């Protein structure tokens, strides 16, 4: 890809016109900007995705501490409290019958998730797609 730039030098020997110079400068800027954008979007790291009944309802950065109460169910009878702290997410409280989501260890790496089966709730850590991360736990 990089090499392609040198394949076709200006063979006619003339100097580049002013417009071409401007065009090249603009394109370089665009390329630099897109690189920076890519770079910083990567550096932003993992986020926490909340899904209720399979539908994504919220996304939070894993790097910002917060506590969120998630209410679900037909009559708002389902309650889970999700805590993001020190780059880890966990469920601190829930009124589900099995309490498995509260017992599940906190998640911090892309691909890790916490599930509350009775409430059809999934808390997922997601990362950049170019990062290997983890696809599943068995």
């Amino acid at each position: 890809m990089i090499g392609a730039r040198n394949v076709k030098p200006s063979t006619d020997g003339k100097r580049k016109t002013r417009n071409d110079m401007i065009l090249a400068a603009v394109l370089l800027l665009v390329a630099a900007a897109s690189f920076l954008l890519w770079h910083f979007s990567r550096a932003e790291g993992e986020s926490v995705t909340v899904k209720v009944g399979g539908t994504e309802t919220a996304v939070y950065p894993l790097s910002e501490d917060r506590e969120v109460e998630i209410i679900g169910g037909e009559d708002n009878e389902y309650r889970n409290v999700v805590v993001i702290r020190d780059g880890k997410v966990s469920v601190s409280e829930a009124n589900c019958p099995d309490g498995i989501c509260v017992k599940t260890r906190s998640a911090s790496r892309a691909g890790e998730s916490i599930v509350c089966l009775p409430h059809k709730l999934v808390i997922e850590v997601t990362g950049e797609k170019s990062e290997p991360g983890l696809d599943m736990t068995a």
Partner: protein
Amino acid sequence: MKKVFSVLLALCLLLVPLSGCKQAGEKYNAYYFEYFDTVSIVTGYAESKEAFDAVCAEIEAELKEYHRLYTIYNGFEGVNNLKTVNAVTDGAHSEVQVDRKVIDLLLFAKEMYRETDGLVNVAMGSVLKLWHVYRNEGIDDPAAAQLPPMEKLKDAAKHTDIDKVIIDEENGTVFLADPKMSLDVGAIAKGYAVEQIARHLEEKGITGYLLNVGGNVRAVGTFGEKPWNVGIENPDKENEDVPHIEFLHLTNEAVITSGVYQRYYYVDGEKYHHIIDPETLMPGSNFMSVSVLAEDSGVGDAFSTALFLMNYEDGLKLIEETENVEAMWVMPDGEQRYSSGFKAYTYVP
């Protein structure tokens, strides 16, 4: 000409940052909560969300069908499932006309019974039902939690003869020849169903999917060259710092873990999990967990239960004698032991 050259140059420059992502497709996840009393996760690489959703619709339809046929807890109108087979009227079971998928599961179950020397026995419903009832009561009211009385367990164990599961392949019927016996396919049904769904996808040429039904993980091809990264859960749930104790690269294999941490309750401060030894009628206590890597997810599911109930030496012998299965044992002190071919699949993240 120069303009064309400049535009080409620009395109190249623009593509440089994008080349950081080696793969053209995107990764998607879907979750299902309605089947096999557990959570099912489909992870896949697809060109678009629409393409992923189309494959998921197919997977879900299959999951739903297997669930409806294999459940012992729910009845469905117009469906003869394992609940129908277990039903007793006028003091006896009836010969029940069932879907071919039920026949195939039960034939597979008998094969696994033989392969595991009876450690995986789907005719143990009477015993497992007792544990199920006492466990649920113990979870609902921990202060009053009790063990099923050994007398009751021993009584139930008299009605677990798998040879009394009469399968008539030609007529497509199943009959339980002991009125007090019942089927519980919990140790194999999820793994078996996942395997059938995976093969269905393979036949259709669908690749790049990872299926997980309650911890029965099966890879259906990769997306490009990159294998799937699958972590094995640390059975020591108290250890917050080490969530995974091993990492596997999968392309077309299945991995299943049986562990003390998956389904349990406490009686007088003691933990009692759900994997019941047909000999002692009590939960097995040799390991914290056993993970089985297998070509066939159904075999993997059955073997993970069987190995969990065997001692390490016998289990290792069984694995080394059987083709296309590997295992990792986590001993009570946390030590990890491996069969000879397991490490070929592991990686260090």
